[in-house]
């Protein structure tokens, strides 16, 4: 096994072009487990932790570009106001030690159906910036996940960054697990409100072969909310939204929960996050009036 340690992004792309077999490693919170347990023996590791530009995020107007190497701890500490949905999700990852090490890019690279960053990125219309020596591709996140633990990267490509607009309205995230820390989501849900466009984004995690957007639920709720008046959400609207979110999932029975439980929990989380987000929306409206 070779250990490849480029110090610039350009060098990393060259190395990946020469050695498409090399497994990228950043926080190591997924890959090192496989190495420790002997379930994978890649021919090379490509260490991305020495590339400074990967470990930073930048803002240009409303657009944010979050480097693939930005840790969950930094998302929690620095992006809570700009991207509350992602920050709430990052806050539920593992433990402090894991959040210090695990990265947004690593979450996308591992492409686990249960990745905690995925639902909020789906709800916020994020795109994934990937690059190789052949050039840059910017991929919509809902086409990025292909199968469990398989994403849209070509063998010579690396994840450079996530691009996403700063929150223009309330965002929420909820996740089910057996305890507060150190859980792989039984299922998870993220909601983003876009008051200016009068629409919503909804992302579902750990309840299908890949993270998925709940499109029908988004369309229904966008048209059903009283955006202008800020009136309360009708109980039937919440119930219908929950049912449509549950219908967007295609869960299985596994060690963490049953398909039936996941559908039920998704509907509950959808209703609850809607109540929280709508409360925030109405508060913001009152504050402006």
């Amino acid at each position, binding site marked *: 096994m070779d250990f490849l340690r480029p110090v610039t992004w350009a060098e990393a792309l060259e190395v990946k072009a020469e050695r498409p077999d090399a497994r990228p490693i950043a926080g190591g919170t997924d890959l*090192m487990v496989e*190495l*420790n347990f002997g379930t994978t023996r890649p021919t090379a590791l490509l260490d991305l932790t020495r590339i400074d530009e990967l470990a930073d995020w930048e803002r240009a107007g409303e657009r944010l570009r979050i480097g693939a190497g930005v840790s969950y701890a930094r998302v929690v500490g620095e992006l809570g106001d700009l991207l509350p949905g992602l920050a709430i999700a990052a806050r539920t990852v*593992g433990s402090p*030690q*894991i959040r*210090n090490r695990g990265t947004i890019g690593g979450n996308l690279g591992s492409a686990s159906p249960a990745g905690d960053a995925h639902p909020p990125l789906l709800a916020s219309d994020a795109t994934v910036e990937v690059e190789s020596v052949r050039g840059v591709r910017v991929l919509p996140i809902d086409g990025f996940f292909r199968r469990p633990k398989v994403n849209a990267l070509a063998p010579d490509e690396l994840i450079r960054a996530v691009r996403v607009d700063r929150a223009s309205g309330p965002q929420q995230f909820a996740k089910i697990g057996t305890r507060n*820390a150190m859980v792989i989501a039984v299922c998870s849900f993220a909601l983003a409100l876009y008051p200016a466009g009068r629409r919503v984004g909804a992302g579902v995690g750990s309840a299908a072969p890949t993270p998925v957007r709940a499109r029908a639920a988004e369309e229904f709720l966008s048209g059903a909310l009283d955006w202008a008046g800020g009136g309360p959400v009708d109980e039937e609207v919440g119930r219908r939204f929950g049912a449509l979110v549950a219908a967007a999932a295609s869960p299985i029975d596994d060690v963490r929960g049953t398909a039936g439980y996941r559908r039920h929990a998704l509907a509950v989380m959808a209703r609850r996050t809607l109540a929280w987000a709508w409360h925030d929306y109405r508060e913001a409206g009152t504050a402006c009036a």
Partner: protein
Amino acid sequence: MRVRFTVNGQQHVVDDVWPGESLLYVLRERCGLPGSKNACEQGECGSCTVYLDGRTVCACLVAAGQADGRVVGTVEGLAAGERLHPVQEAFVEAGAVQCGFCTPGLIVQAHDLLENASGSPTDAEIREALAGNLCRCTGYEKIIEAVRRAAEARAHDAPTAEREAP
């Protein structure tokens, strides 16, 4: 593969490291520092918690080569000679140690909490900071008490330290 890094202020050069090896393995088996414990090897238990460039991490999830040129701090580096660090002292006083296997990781993580907390952490903050460290003996109550004691001791000592500062 050669790995050069600083551990507890001392430069280490380690040769013949297998690239898939963890920092934990290097510390325990090659540097003679067995304080960081090897248990789950998947980041679940926190027994191998060390500082890497000032942040606590699970050493089992850091590839050895990623530590090259970095600064590592382990539980062995906390005491000043024979004098235990106040966090270690508090664990002894509170009876927060039973089998002792989880203790080094908890002490490093508690040390980090107290180094970075402004004022005394609440119980909820202590529990949150230690959420990635499993103990199968104590039921955690004595551990929480130890961290409270260490925080109190620090708050008590802080004004003195300020007076002594040049």
